């Protein structure tokens, strides 16, 4: 992966720069992101954590070009997403970004193989056969390629989704609670695959999760609270993450004691 290593030198795979995002207006307005700046290093596995409503999903949606920001700028590699039209955004999502959702989100009419190659097919590109074999081998789906999603288990479906995200060699893969709908063993498979993608293929991954064990697979964990980046851990273990989460929960409760009462 020569191209990727070059990127590692130049630095950032994705960047949110002073981003603010508000939902609703007036009294019911909720500030999801509040002048937030986050850098995502190339070839790194970044986890985003925080209590419910802290803005972690919104941050990911904005970074991935699924949602727009009110102010600030979002970059994928050297491309500024802020201000891009729908068509250009669609092309960025297809070529530069990969997605893994909690709900698997495969197309029921397509076989596993067709689901994996779908983003390339939309762009009328042919997958490189050796790279395809590598990816399929990595997710362990070689004997399931002709199956329809309804014939696969949840863990297998999510592995198809992982392969789909990895195949176009995107700048970043965004994973939104990828293990949220899986048992711990299937979830472990997915996390090990993501880790391996980072180490072997130099893939950049951003994962939103609330599971400290999942976050422990990351190189770096950033913690959000009320739309701000409040803490950051490098090479974390599950206990560190859990402690931080507890501390943040306490902070959150202190911040709005009357509302709870």
């Amino acid at each position, binding site marked *: 992966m020569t191209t990727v290593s070059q990127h590692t030198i130049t630095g950032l795979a994705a960047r949110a720069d002073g981003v603010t995002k508000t939902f609703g207006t007036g009294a019911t307005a909720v500030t999801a992101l509040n002048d937030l700046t986050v850098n995502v290093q190339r070839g790194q596995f970044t986890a985003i954590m925080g209590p419910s409503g802290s803005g972690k999903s919104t941050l990911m*949606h904005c970074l991935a070009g699924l*949602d727009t920001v009110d102010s600030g700028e979002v970059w994928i590699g050297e491309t500024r997403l802020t201000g891009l039209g729908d*068509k250009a955004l*669609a092309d960025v999502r297809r070529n530069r970004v990969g997605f893994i959702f909690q709900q698997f989100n495969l197309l029921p*009419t*397509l076989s596993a193989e067709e689901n994996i190659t779908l983003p390339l097919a939309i762009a009328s590109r042919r997958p490189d056969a050796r790279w395809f074999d590598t990816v399929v081998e990595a997710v362990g789906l070689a004997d399931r390629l002709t199956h329809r999603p309804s014939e696969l288990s949840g863990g297998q479906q999510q592995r198809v989704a992982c392969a789909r995200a990895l195949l176009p060699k995107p700048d970043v893969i965004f994973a*939104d609670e990828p293990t949220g709908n899986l048992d711990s063993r299937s979830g472990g498979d997915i996390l090990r695959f993501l880790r391996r993608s980072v180490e072997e293929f130099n893939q950049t991954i951003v994962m939103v999760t609330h599971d400290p064990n999942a976050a422990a697979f990351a190189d770096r964990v950033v913690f959000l609270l009320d739309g701000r980046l409040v803490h950051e851990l490098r090479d974390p273990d599950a206990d560190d993450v859990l402690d931080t989460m507890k501390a943040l929960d306490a902070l959150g409760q202190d911040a709005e004691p009357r509302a709870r009462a």
Partner: protein
Amino acid sequence: MLRATLKGLLARKLRLALAGLAVVLGVTAVSAAMVTTETIGNGFDAIFATAASDVDVSVSARPNVDESTTFAPPLPASVLEELDAVRDAESVTGVVSADGARPIGPDGKVISVQGPPRLGVAWAGETGMTRLREGRGPRAANEVAINAGLAEQGGFGVGGTIDVLTLRPRQTFQVVGIYGYRNGLDTMGGGTEVAFTEPVAQQLILGRTGVYSSVTMTAADGVSPEKLRDQVADVLGSSYLVRTGDELAEQTASEGQAFLETVRMVLLAFSGLSLLIGIFLILNTFSILVAQRTSELALVAALGARRRQIVGSVLVEAALVGVLASAVGVGAGIAVSTLLKSFMESQSGAQLPVGLTVPMPDLVLAFVVGVLVTLVAALVPAVRASRVPPVAAMREAAAEQRSLTGITVAGAVPAALGTAGLVAAVTGIAGDFRWLALGGGVVLALLGLALLTPVASRYLLPAVGRLLSWSTPGKLGRRNAERNPRRTAITVATLVVTLGLVGGVGVVAESLRGDVSSVVASDLTADLVISGDGVSARAGGQSGGPPTAADGRIMPTFAPEVVERAREVPGVAVATAQYVDTVQLDGRAPGPSPGNAGDLSRLESVLGLEAVDGTLRTLARDEVVVDTETLADQGLAVGDRIRVSTQRAGWQEYRVVGSYEPNFLLRGPVLAPEVAAERFVSPLPALGYVELEPGADAAAVKSSVSELVADNPEVTVADQTQLASDASSRLDIAEIMLYVLLGLSVVIGILGVVNTMALSILERTRELGLLRAIGMRRSHMVHMVVAESLVMSVFGGLVGLAFGTLAGAAFVSVAGLAVLAVPWASLALFLGLAILAGLVAALAPSTRAARVNILAAIGDR
């Protein structure tokens, strides 16, 4: 449970609106048909009731021919004298009024009216209904008064002239008066009227002076019309029709309503069709609605609702939709009727002296039908939903794939029976029952086809789809079309049925056209034919036989001198005329028959007649030549005597002096031309044939002969090619009418596809969001949805057209037509229509798919 249902209902307004649309359309069509026919019927009744309001008793001659003819032979003046003697009669008036005065408009063409008569009458002053608007009544033989409708239609005014064709050739008259009717109407039911002085009217309309078309009487004070009627009947005996004014009005109105029946049939056929399609639509919509809610219903079941409650909740929903949509439909139907009424009034020139008549019981029926149809259509998916085990349903995306084995077996049986019926009909095994076998076969095969469509879609859709999906979005669309065969089948059902009918009609019509052309070419040896509009068309009608004035209307005719002068045109070898009438035969099988007259020695040559017995020579007045089939039917032979009743003269006896092989253009008894001039409904010939000398300049002769009839806008000179195409033109009209009807159901078919597409799009919101998330552009989304819609409509179109072509071919074979002609161009056009339907149907759903909110769709916000 009810509250939950109502809340659910409101939450799905769009989907229910789509479901309701189908019901609205069906009910609109039904109620429009009912209100329109009721209103027009009432209008006609009102017109004719006032027309007959001054008449207590009407006397007219019985028609001489049994067929539903409106031509009554004239009454001699002696009848008036007899009636003067009736004790309780206060007044006895001879009336001259009959169809057949064809005014020629300023453009040189005959003023045409569709349906109502073109009356020629004797002016009787401002009596009864008639009211002069301008000028005066006619006093001299060259003067006429005309009704206001005609004056407006032809732009005629007092002081100008008008040319009229009657039993005599074209004559010019001075317009001295314009009249309307007592209740302010310009016309009576749309007809034109020319009023002459009495002797002129008698001469031109009834054929000779001193006769009347009917006699009207009023009763003395205190005498009921019925009593007077009975007295008159006693005096005159049974040879006359004696009716009270009310009976006359009823009779006239019902004759005027003959075309109304056609309108009614067309509208009811359309509404039946749209209701049937409505059932498909509702069934489809509700199965999708219920499928989408399967998990919701399962939750309710898991919380302890009984199956009956679940079915009930779906039915309550359906009932609400049905009631609302049916109410809207009835309202829309009344609105459509108002439009139809004014449209018909403007088209026919007739005004109806009544407002919109709303037949309440009929509308209630339409309403109930709408509600019931909705309930029945919703019952199936409701029961199916209640049978889903709660746990299975609560899992995401309850399996859409259900086995097709049952439905396939159920479809194979009628399909096999239908095919067997068709084969039996085509091969002739079915014998005399071949038409029954054909009809039953088509219906059964269509039913089988409907049930087999799901399984057919599984194998045919990929094939069709491959042609249309060259890119990934296209491929995705194709896969979507394939994913639920049942739903696809039900979606395209309308297209299959409609295009099946259209294709079948197209094949049959094209084959008939080919048949008619080939028969005309083989039976007609004349090079040129002189005839009026519709005469030669009748000559080539599918029943065969010569043109007849079967409806009793005066046919377009021309002066007999035309053929005499045509004989003097250089290059003409033979020119002769044919007179036509409908006659009654008396023999072993009494009944109406085409009747003809002409110079047989010449007709033999121009029609390629073959004498079987005796010779085909110029006939004496009491001689007749009859075709062999008619002779055999009546149990007669050459040398026998035969009784023939012509429309004008009644029963006469003739001697059969010869027989001929019936020809496509000539059938029935043939009399001498002098007989026709006296006894046929029109004394003038309706057809003229011209045969050229070898080597003559056909174009030059044609233009010379055309000169001879230049002053008669009713007739033209056609060569064989024109005649063949003219003969098939009657088919064109029937075909076009049918196409219009089917076109309307195509529109509903499009709605069906729109509906399914829209619901499927709603159902797949999450997938659409995913596709956008992984980089499909909006244009890709549109492409995908259009591909799905196109694959389905092309599939439906192909299946329907294939079926229609086969059924049409079977019909052609059973009917024994000479040629099987497949109208490829038309079929391609119909397929084009199916494609267009697919594009139209994809319009709204594809827009929706393109605009889907990604985050909302994938459920992350």
